[in-house]
């Protein structure tokens, strides 16, 4: 008689672990297969490239995380050209 609740508990634990594994597998599939594939769709790919080239991170939360703009003369402006030139290899 006392084995029955223990057996149920063990079965529930197995089910819970199975659900967790399934969830993890779902995340892995979405992030490793679906999202990279979506990124190769032309309009989305173009948007990603444009953000990347301009140094924009659309997922930031606060203005201090904007890397390509700086506060100058009463507003956020693109960093000065000299800063950009420093990042560009003259051979390019």
């Amino acid at each position, binding site marked *: 008689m006392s084995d029955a609740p223990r057996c149920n508990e063990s079965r529930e634990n197995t089910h819970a672990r199975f659900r967790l594994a399934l969830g993890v597998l779902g995340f892995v599939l979405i992030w490793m297969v679906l999202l990279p594939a979506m990124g190769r769709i032309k309009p989305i790919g173009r948007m990603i490239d444009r953000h990347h080239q301009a140094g924009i991170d659309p997922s930031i939360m606060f203005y201090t*995380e904007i890397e390509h*703009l700086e506060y100058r003369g009463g507003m956020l402006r693109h960093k000065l050209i000299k800063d950009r030139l420093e990042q560009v290899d003259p051979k390019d």
Partner: protein
Amino acid sequence: MSEDKLSTEEDSDDLKSNDSQAVVPVVWYKHEDWLAVIIGITVLLAAFICGSVSVDFVDGETAMNHPWKSWVGKPGGWTDNPVASITNWRVMLGPLLVGLIGFGIARRLQGHSIKDFAPAFLFIFLLAGIAYVMAGQATVKSFNLEYALWALAVGLLISNTTGVPQWLRPAVLTELYIKTGLVILGAEVLWHRLIALGVPGVAVAWIVTPIVLISTYWFGTRVLRLPSKSLAMVIAADMSVCGVSAAIATSASCRAKKEELSFAIAISLMFTVAMMVVMPRVIEAVGMDPIVGGAWIGGTIDSTGAVVAAGSSLGPIAEQTAATVKMIQNILIGITAFGVAVYWVLFVESDQASQVRPDAMEIWRRFPKFVLGFVLASIGFTLLSQWVDNGESLVTLTTKGATKGLRGWFFCMAFVSIGLDTRFASLKRQAQGGKPLLLYVCGQSLNIVLTLAMAYLMFGVLFADYIKEMIAK
């Protein structure tokens, strides 16, 4: 007060229940709010001092980085291979160490064992790291799906399948992480930048934002009759001020439930994705002036990153205008958090507790003390930026190079903790027959119309030449 609030009995009351009958006073420094203030201010001071003694300036500029910069940051971006995001793993060591020491000492002061806390904290930190890696995927990042969402998802997956193991509980500290992160965020709220763009910026951000915030809250509580006033407030602030960061600050100020914060953020991010794509197309289609369009985008789209992305698709002028309007709104969270905390203590909680207006001591007892740390950090760093030699550069160096990385990790761990404490059923309950969604849609519609009218009037008619001259400088 229920366990699922963003403030616990321990930190909101000066008396801690020992059992149902007796109460014993709790020393102030054991309160979560004060601990958050102590950790936050210590981190800020240490970062500022380190920056000021090790960085040399020439004519107010420097080519050097903050000494913490290579040790404090988040995993990088990736497209196909997530391993690429953790190649610079050193940037995770700083937040890990600061968190382990800071929160470890806090837990010890509260009478808990560091031996129990440390392994649990390491696991929560690992989950936060996974959330950051998920948020770094190029497609996810481009659609402004911030780490908060994935941190919640990771936590929810565990809590709704296997449940949260007992050994992990000592580090599930939503309130402590959020409040500490908010105190650190205070250093990024520089008050003098509130007057950026002059009168037009003030008009769009200072007039429209409070009108939309108050109207949305009123509509939610009086017309839609949402049962939870705090949910109405969090949605109103999230939508009218600046998205996730405003939602975090406001929810802590009005002691919203964890599920309410999660729900408000989910609604906001959903609409942000749509607005980020649609608004620039509409502006282009109607041939709107990029300055007016930029101001409109900056005043309406919730999230800062999405504002910059949407503005940039209209060109550099629109991008800079949009980002600056959003920056002013970002800074408004200081006033919003403080105002909401005062309003809640004076009017909402006193209504709920009794019909009698609380006296000064009662107000002080109920007031969320971490808000004082947030405001203190904000005023302190504003003064440092103005009064110290090379202050503006030094403050920017400190916040960008050191503290923003730390508060990002603390917020991320807070969202993992919220996920770990939340059941899907309780999230579903927040839907309340679609009323919160309706509140967001109505509030955002008002925001879109009012901001467009004000942006057109200020940036397109009354101060058009002034703004053009300013941008050309």
